[in-house]
């Protein structure tokens, strides 16, 4: 029996419109489950509902407005300090998604957040572009079995002891390794305060009330699977420009691993890109310009913040896009049939004078035809184009997987 799943992958540095595409696909597949295949609460996928309600999805899958359930895979980093706030915010919008998690999903503790923030502060102007939420630090700590904490450990009666051990044994080791000798006052206070652990334990208990433990292996029992990748191929830990990368695989790799466990045999992968390039946070950005001619950039999600600065801009580079998607599609697929297509978003923001580049060559495009020309030049079929922030603004192509 063949089991088909969908996937939405960011082709470059994030902010490509993954939330919009997941929402669109979920609306077309009632009873779907959106699977977070990498990243954690530091993701921010914006969805604007048909009635104008808007939410930036961090933990929860972007298909929630369309009624999809959410599943955290074993590669997803759980953040109990933040889930309930997001849950409450969604609940105010009348959305209450079912959430499940693989028991192996790693868990961020307050101490990972503290170390992350201390490190980024210590770097000053040379920041890596971290969100300050402890994602990379969680991965780092979980490489050490004695300090690891995964979702199933939240049930264990010795949770408190483990947290104290992480604080007292891991934090000094890690800070020393990072060359941090003194913490800023707020962080030092939070680290020393026992209340931090007490609050976190309460958050964990509430987290477990909200999230059903469910193994990746049984994913297909929850509904039609839609993988939602976080960040983009340009930030992949193995492909991006170190150190300005995220500590996860942002493309097919994790999805294929989960699909193999879950018995999924066919995967339709939509690579999403804006019709221009953005980058949030530090790191190289080819062809970066202060302002893009012919593009009226609209992005209420990426307001400047203390940790990542403002949104950076460049024309879409087809060479980079081609290289990134080709490389992702060259992964060993372990017998899973993968079809790939392109989704080009934010076309409504392009005007006359809008251009893309291909290996240095500037190519002016007519916005109305841009999506199919970009897809042709990248060598992928065009599966979708979007002309606005809502799912009704997405045009799916007839030959698309859906």
């Amino acid at each position, binding site marked *: 029996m063949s089991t088909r799943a969908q996937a939405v992958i960011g082709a470059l*540095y*994030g*902010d490509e419109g993954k939330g919009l595409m997941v929402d669109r696909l979920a609306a077309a597949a009632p009873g779907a489950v959106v699977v977070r295949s990498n990243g954690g*609460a*530091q*993701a*921010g*996928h914006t969805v604007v509902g048909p009635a104008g309600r808007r939410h*930036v999805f*961090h933990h929860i899958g972007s298909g929630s407005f369309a009624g999809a359930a959410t599943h955290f895979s074993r590669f997803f980093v759980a953040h109990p*300090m*933040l889930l*309930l*706030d997001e*849950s*409450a915010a969604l609940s105010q919008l009348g959305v209450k998604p079912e959430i*499940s998690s693989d*028991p192996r999903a790693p868990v961020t503790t*307050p101490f990972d*957040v503290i170390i992350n*923030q201390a490190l980024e*502060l210590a770097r000053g102007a040379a920041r890596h*572009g971290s*969100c*300050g*939420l402890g994602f990379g630090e969680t991965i780092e700590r979980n490489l050490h079995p004695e300090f690891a904490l995964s979702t*199933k450990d939240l*049930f*264990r*009666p*010795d*949770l408190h002891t483990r947290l104290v051990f992480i604080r007292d044994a891991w934090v000094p080791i890690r800070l020393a390794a990072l060359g941090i000798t003194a913490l800023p006052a*707020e*962080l030092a*206070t*939070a680290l020393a*305060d026992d209340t*931090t652990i007490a*609050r976190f334990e*309460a*958050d964990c*208990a*509430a987290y*477990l*009330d*909200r999230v*059903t*433990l*469910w*193994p990746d292996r*049984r994913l297909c029992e929850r509904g039609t699977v839609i993988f939602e990748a976080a*960040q*983009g191929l340009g930030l992949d830990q193995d492909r991006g420009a170190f150190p300005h990368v995220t500590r996860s695989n942002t493309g097919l790799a994790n999805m294929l691993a989960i699909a193999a466990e879950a018995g999924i045999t066919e995967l339709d992968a939509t690579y999403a890109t804006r019709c221009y390039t953005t980058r*949030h*946070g530090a790191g190289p950005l080819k062809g970066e310009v202060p302002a893009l001619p012919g593009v009226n950039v609209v992005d209420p999600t*990426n307001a400047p*913040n*203390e*940790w*990542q600065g403002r949104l950076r801009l460049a024309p879409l580079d087809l060479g980079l896009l081609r290289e990134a998607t080709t490389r992702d599609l060259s992964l060993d697929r372990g017998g899973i049939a993968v079809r790939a297509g392109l989704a080009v978003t934010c076309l409504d923001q392009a005007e006359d004078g809008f251009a893309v580049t291909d290996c240095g060559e500037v190519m002016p495009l007519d916005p109305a035809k841009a999506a199919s020309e970009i897809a042709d030049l990248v060598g992928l079929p065009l599966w979708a184009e979007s002309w606005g922030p809502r799912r009704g603004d997405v045009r799916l192509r007839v030959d698309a997987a859906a």
Partner: protein
Amino acid sequence: MGMGRFSTTDWAAYNARHVDGRSRSEVFGATGIDPRFDPARFATRESRDSAYNPQSTPIILASDVTGSMGMIAHELMRGGLITLTSEIYDRRPVSDPHIMVAAVGDAYTDTAPLQATQFEADISLASQIRALWLEGNGGGNDGESYSAAHLLAALKTSTDAFERRGRKGYLFTIGDEPVHNGLAADQIARIFGIEPPRGLSARECLAMAQRSYEVFHIVIREGYAAARLDRVLASWQPLLPGRAFVLDDHRRIAELVVSIIEITEGRDAGDVAASWSGAAAAVVAKAIGERPKRRLLPFF
């Protein structure tokens, strides 16, 4: 893509705010019996062989959740039993464990004297356990209706292990009180949704369960049993000679249950106790050490 909501100055706010006040509306502690878990409403709980679990072994863990257990009931249902089920799934003391968790109360005084999850082969059981209602009642009547768990196994489960392969499952009851002497006809009718011709004694309920389950009881030495252990044992030992254990530290329930299963499956008791680390080894050794110096083999 990013979010940066948590800044250094947010720490004071994080530590000042109380999760209960903030988000309990988001938290679904059960406030009544969930009809999914009501034995009067389901016909049978099935434990079936499958491609993943070709040699399934049903295990029922039935814990007292009444008020005398106090915070222990809460801790057991929120953490201890989930740790226990994880330990069983990981350590596999029997082939392909299928676990059901039941919450036992008092048929004389409780609204929900018995609740039972499905049999599950993996950790997805955890959320069902957390959805069981901790009524926290139970009467001051020197006993709980543990017999309801025995009758549940006998009347409301159907297992491939026994029906197809003639293998018994495991049934553990866990609690701090003596066992009431069975169930009256009207209690059976209310709990199980059937019309019995008469009531059944504790021994009759147990005997019915023992046809297809190896049955054990664990006395948690807290609550009622902390002060009146003799009365508790006087109630249990005649029913389950050699199969009623006393556990000093309820946080070691996982190690004890897995040990009992492993010993019953033929492993050496000393080896099993020693296989746990640190404090657990001593607690388990004490709990199983008062056994005769022979292996506990299946009786049937």
